[in-house]
């Protein structure tokens, strides 16, 4: 350690050990039992070769979706989020030297506001699942009721996370079922469960089965005094109605499709938007527009009295470090696509999935799609053998198959969720169909 001796001597010390004299002898440890360090060259080689054990979607057709999607990320997004000034800064506690990040996050909020049709947006939750958990708590803060209805057709993770977030405040999570023919929500069942103590109803558009639920636009009329929480795929909002426009009080979603790689599921980006009137009940960091001492436009974090570092145990959320850089990625991504780009992207996704649906539908043994409805970019198919078995076979052919659904929705034992995006080429589809032909 350079200068260590001089620095120690300025402190009147002669050894580094003396810096740790305040650590009681009984709790001291004697170094770490870890390997010796490696040079940078060796680290790169080591990790690179370890990761070469993975099949990745850059080199192999991938038909997985279910919340995380293999979309194209424009190279410029990477350029932007790799900027030292963005990636190596922290939460903009000093707004005067952080206008760059603050404005980028304000733009992110503005984009999500426009997509969701809701004026108030926070500058990120960890992911869609935790955003849903926070949304349930927020509903309770809004109307002081404790019953929260969610679709049965929802991912295992999202249900589990919600239950964990709901447990503290004592929110009761109740599932409503789906129509086995259309995959849409079962309105009768929902009505029966929306008892007077109901705080919020959560609906996903498109839902976990890829279905664009035609009931969504009427729910607010149907249940006017229950908080409506919509879970949306932001790419789909390029073509589909804004949840705010059909009465959503809160909109959450997974922001990963907006310019983030899949990265094995992390980092993600929890979208969170709500009506302006609810803004002080909202969780998470928010960036507000303001001015500086000379009256110039400026941005800063605001409404901090909701937050943990001031309100402590009474805060609207404990969230501190969030997914800010992913929010910048989303802003950059949406800026590059622009209005027409996002619209077209949404439609191309529907078209690609439709094409795949039909191709698989031609295989006798597969029922594709399993549900009779409009889909966004994914759809369930009924498979002749267990989907896990199919996936093992596909891996041998260098194809990353779809999601076996029964781990999420028990009764869908022989169902697989398949996804296509603008990155799914005709050749990819043909390779899949060829491979599926061998499945009997």
């Amino acid at each position, binding site marked *: *350690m350079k*200068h260590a001796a001089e*620095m120690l001597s300025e402190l009147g010390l002669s050894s*580094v050990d003396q*810096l*740790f004299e305040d*650590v009681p002898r009984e*709790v001291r440890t004697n*170094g*770490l039992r870890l390997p010796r360090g490696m040079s*940078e060259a060796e680290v790169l080689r080591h990790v690179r070769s370890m*990761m*070469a054990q*993975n*099949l990745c*979607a850059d080199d192999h057709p991938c038909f997985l979706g279910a919340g*995380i999607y293999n979309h194209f990320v*424009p190279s410029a997004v990477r350029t932007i989020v790799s900027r030292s*000034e963005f990636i190596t800064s922290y939460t903009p*506690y000093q707004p005067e030297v*952080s*206008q*760059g990040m603050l*404005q980028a996050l304000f*733009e992110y909020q503005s984009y999500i506001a426009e997509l969701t049709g809701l*004026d108030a947006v926070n500058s990120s939750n960890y992911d869609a699942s935790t955003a849903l958990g926070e949304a349930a708590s927020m509903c309770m803060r809004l109307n002081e009721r404790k019953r929260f209805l969610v679709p049965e057709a929802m991912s295992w993770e*999202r249900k*589990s996370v919600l239950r*964990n977030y709901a*447990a*503290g405040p004592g929110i009761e999570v109740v599932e409503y079922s789906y129509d086995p023919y259309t995959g849409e929500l079962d309105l009768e069942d929902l009505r029966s469960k929306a008892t007077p103590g109901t705080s919020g109803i959560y609906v996903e558009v498109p839902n976990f089965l890829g279905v664009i639920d035609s009931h969504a636009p009427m729910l607010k009329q149907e249940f006017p005094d229950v908080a409506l929480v919509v879970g949306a795929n932001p790419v789909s909002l390029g073509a*589909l*109605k804004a949840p705010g426009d059909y009465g959503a009080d809160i909109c959450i979603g997974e922001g990963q499709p907006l310019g983030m*790689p899949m*990265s094995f*599921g*992390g*980092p993600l980006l929890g979208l969170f938007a709500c009506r*302006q009137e609810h*803004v002080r009940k909202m969780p998470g960091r928010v960036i507000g527009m303001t001015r500086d*001492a000379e009256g110039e436009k400026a941005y800063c974090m605001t409404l901090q009295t909701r937050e*943990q570092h001031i309100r402590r*145990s009474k*805060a609207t959320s*404990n*969230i501190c470090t969030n*997914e800010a*850089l*992913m929010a910048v990625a989303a802003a950059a991504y949406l*800026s590059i696509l*622009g*209005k*027409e780009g996002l*619209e077209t992207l949404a439609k*191309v996704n529907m*078209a690609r999935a439709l094409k795949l649906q039909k191709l698989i539908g031609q295989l006798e043994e597969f029922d594709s799609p399993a549900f009779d409805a*409009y889909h966004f970019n994914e759809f369930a198919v009924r498979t002749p053998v267990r989907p896990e078995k199919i996936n093992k076979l596909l891996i041998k052919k260098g194809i990353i198959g779809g*999601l076996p659904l029964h781990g999420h929705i028990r009764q869908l034992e022989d169902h697989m969720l398949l996804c296509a995006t*603008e*990155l799914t080429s005709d050749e990819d589809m043909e390779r899949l169909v060829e491979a599926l032909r061998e499945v009997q």
Partner: protein
Amino acid sequence: MYRQAKHDRRLIMEKDGSSDFDVPFSDDLQGLEDFAPAGMLRESLDLPSLPEREVVKHYVNLSQMNFSVDNGLYPLGSCTMKFNPKYADVLASLPTVAGLHPYQDEDSVQGALRLLHDLELALCEVSGMDAVTLQPAAGAHGEFTGMLLAKAYHAKSQEPRTQVVVPDSAHGTNPSSAAMAGFEVIEIPSGEDGCVDLEALRAAVGERTAALMITNPNTLGIFESQIREIAKVVHEAGALLYYDGANLNAVMGRTSPGAMDFDIVHFNLHKTFATPHGGGGPGAGPVGVRERLVPFLPVPRIVQREGRYRLDYDRPDSIGTVRSFYGNFAVLVRAYSYILRKGADGLQEASERAVLNSNYLKRRLAPSYPAKYKELRKHEFVVSCKRLKEERGVRALDVGKRLLDYGYHAPTIYFPALVEEALMIEPTETETRETLDQFAEAMLRIAGEDPELVRSAPHNASVRRVDEVFAAKEAILSYRAFKRRAAKSSPKG
């Protein structure tokens, strides 16, 4: 003298052009129309449209108006803003890292699972814990996870423990996380020496106590030397001891939460393990536990058998999961790479140098910025601007703002509350002595500068002092809201 860049401040929504992005397969859309149920198609979408050229320009210029570690010293106490080595970013963006879907069959992600497994083991070693989950997305999320574990643990033994004890100097996330998990939070005051007051602790802890949450070294950078007694009090009451790992950078190789008898620990990989903070995230907040808490850890667990790695969901006592999938993988890859690079000695040296830098800087600042309590600190320290305020009317906030003019980030201000006019300073191990000397000079100079100059700082940042009150009053969080408001307040609106 330092001066931050200043560029065009229009929002991207206020710029004009047309996008040059091409969506693959958009030709196929011809003739396709019937995509969605009636009434579900969008009618308007008010997004800007700009060529890549304008977007890149916009964000490159914005970035120049943002101070970061790569620009200079970022001595933000409690946040461990150390340098983020660049090889870690390279690895995190490999196609074989970035291009993995979390639902891939285990056979196709053996490398990824192995990395996670190895990282868990390394974190066990650093913390002295028996098992680690990598799922939590940040420190506070780790705390929340830890609290759920504590709850599940006590529930299993059918103990109705409903309280969590937290010192008043704790980071706000501690009480908040405990509350979110459904606990009642009991705050205890710090002692005269800035440490946990054992008497107050004894008084607070009892059969309803589920856990005590503390960090060691504490927020003053002081090592709680009575840690063994604290642990004894907590454990004898049947409660668990929770370690807020935000300060782990002070002690690697020298002691560990395990050695101090903690039961649950969270890590902030974005602090101790050098992953970049990303302007506020993503981070990663793994949680380590002792044996008796292992059954409650989130699923899936990554298990190894005969050289193959699997995801094990079959854990009946598990709390389930706290977020989708396996954690912030790209962040975990960075932390893992950092650990490989440093190795056993390197990690320990990092802590040693962090502590040396902190004590050295504290000594250099002493003439104008006294630090109460005892002399020796760990990786950070807290000084007071009380005298400066009294004598010159210059507050901690002002000193912080004036530091921006010198090209430094400000320290953490007004935390912890037990120090009046607090500046909480954490230089980290990645700063050279030269940098520390220069920073100290700037700090000492500020103490003697014209108070008005300091109070009106910053002068060299891209904007002057920002009106935070106005922001909170207006609560304009989007361009949409801004336009709506402008329309309202304009006579024609």
